[in-house]
């Protein structure tokens, strides 16, 4: 008997999730398209007042991207639970936390990354000043993995329950608020030409912590949630 070592197992899982995402690329594109729709509808809903749009652009892009991510979060483990793949994963001789870390990574790569890529487009649809763009991207690069990681823990907690949707949203809101506050703080500072390092540094610190702890918490939560 030769049990599989960790690294190839991680690679196999990551590759599986990416392949699956590619096979169903229409569904990955969904958050991106929702974000696009929102950004397109805004000018229509608010009227084409340039100064107004510019004023809200940073915040609107931020909220839109995070919201689009939340959309996809719910599905993180759903199909794996439904077709029994998660059981098989939990029965494999691998530590669960790094495996879940891989799943979270795959999720971030397939939902957040495309959103970050089109964020400049969204921002320019709303006439965000070009100078603020790098700060927006930096904020997103830190905020989105944070949401993925924290969200995964909550999704895992609700995995075994049936009324998952509402609960998830309920529990996510408190998590999103601080993230949005810091990210929007950085944006606002940048837009006014003030230093914006401090809030970004806070986000970075939180991310570092989450990268270490979230997969462990996620594994624990999943064990609890599926024991029924």
């Amino acid at each position, binding site marked *: 008997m030769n049990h599989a070592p960790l690294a190839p197992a991680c690679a196999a899982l990551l590759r599986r999730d990416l392949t699956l995402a590619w096979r169903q690329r229409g569904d990955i594109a969904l958050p991106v398209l929702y974000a696009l729709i929102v950004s397109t509808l805004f000018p229509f809903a608010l009227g084409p007042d340039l100064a107004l749009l510019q004023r809200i652009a940073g915040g609107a892009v931020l909220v839109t991207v995070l919201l689009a991510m939340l959309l996809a979060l719910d599905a993180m483990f759903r199909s794996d639970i439904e077709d029994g793949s998660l059981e098989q994963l939990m029965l494999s001789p691998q530590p669960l936390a790094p495996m879940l870390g891989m799943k979270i990574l795959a999720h971030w790569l397939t939902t957040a990354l495309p959103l970050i890529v089109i964020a400049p487009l969204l921002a320019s649809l709303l006439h965000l000043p070009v100078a603020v763009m790098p700060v927006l991207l930096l904020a997103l690069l830190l905020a989105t993995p944070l949401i993925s990681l924290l969200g995964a*823990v*909550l999704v895992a*907690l*609700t995995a*075994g*329950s*049936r*009324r*998952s949707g*509402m*609960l998830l949203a*309920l*529990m996510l*809101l*408190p998590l999103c*608020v601080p993230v949005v*506050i810091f990210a929007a703080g950085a944006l606002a500072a940048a837009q006014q030409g003030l230093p914006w390092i401090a809030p970004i540094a806070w986000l970075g610190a939180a991310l570092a912590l989450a990268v270490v702890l979230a997969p462990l*918490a996620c594994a*624990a*939560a999943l064990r*609890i*949630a599926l*024991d*029924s």
Partner: protein
Amino acid sequence: MAKWIPLWLHKLSSPPTFYAFAGKVRPWAIALALILGVIALYGALVLAPPDYQQGDDYRIIFIHVPSAWMSLFIYAVMGVSAFIALVWRIKLAEVVAMESAPIGAAFTFITLVTGSLWGERMWGTWWTWDARLTSELVLLFLYLGVIGLYHSFEDRRQGARAAAFLAIIGIINVPIVHFSVQWWNTLHQGSTVNLFGKSHIATDMLWPLLTMMVATKAYYVASLCGRVRTDLLALEGGKDWVRKIAAAEKSR
């Protein structure tokens, strides 16, 4: 179960024993809460003089502050018993944690509403997104999340464990609520009551506040006893002692 738990505690944590015990504690606790509550209300509304700056408006403090304290205190109790529940799988700890949540949510809600009413007068707006207010709102969401998670599982014990996990994660919010006025500059005012040092508040305003604090604690104990009893019935539905109660209730 851990060996070091004293025998009487071990015995008490058996559901039927605790059911009986809580049934005895409850009337005493609620009586204490009512008596102290009436005294405190009298002191608050009648005896305490109007504030020289705020007029009678400040009387909201006698509701707002004890409720705010309770919202944090109950969360702490919930967090500790959630930890015990997860580590030692003690049924009673699960129940105490889960049944604390609705009471805590009630106090948090009261804090938010009274604070808003007060803020409408003092700050000219009933809501701003400052750190204390926001973190208190987050506290409410955490309570609701715990309640929702608990009830969304079919197996109650499993739900209790999942919700306990959430409660433990959320405990970082408690110091944030408390210290937010120091860490960030907020509209909300800082500490005025200091239990151990000198308080920046007149004595005839202080004693109703402290009496109300004790009254709310007593109320918490009373309410918790009632809720735990109810939840134990649901949890132990297969056991004989509960079935006897169910059958007896029907014949009534």
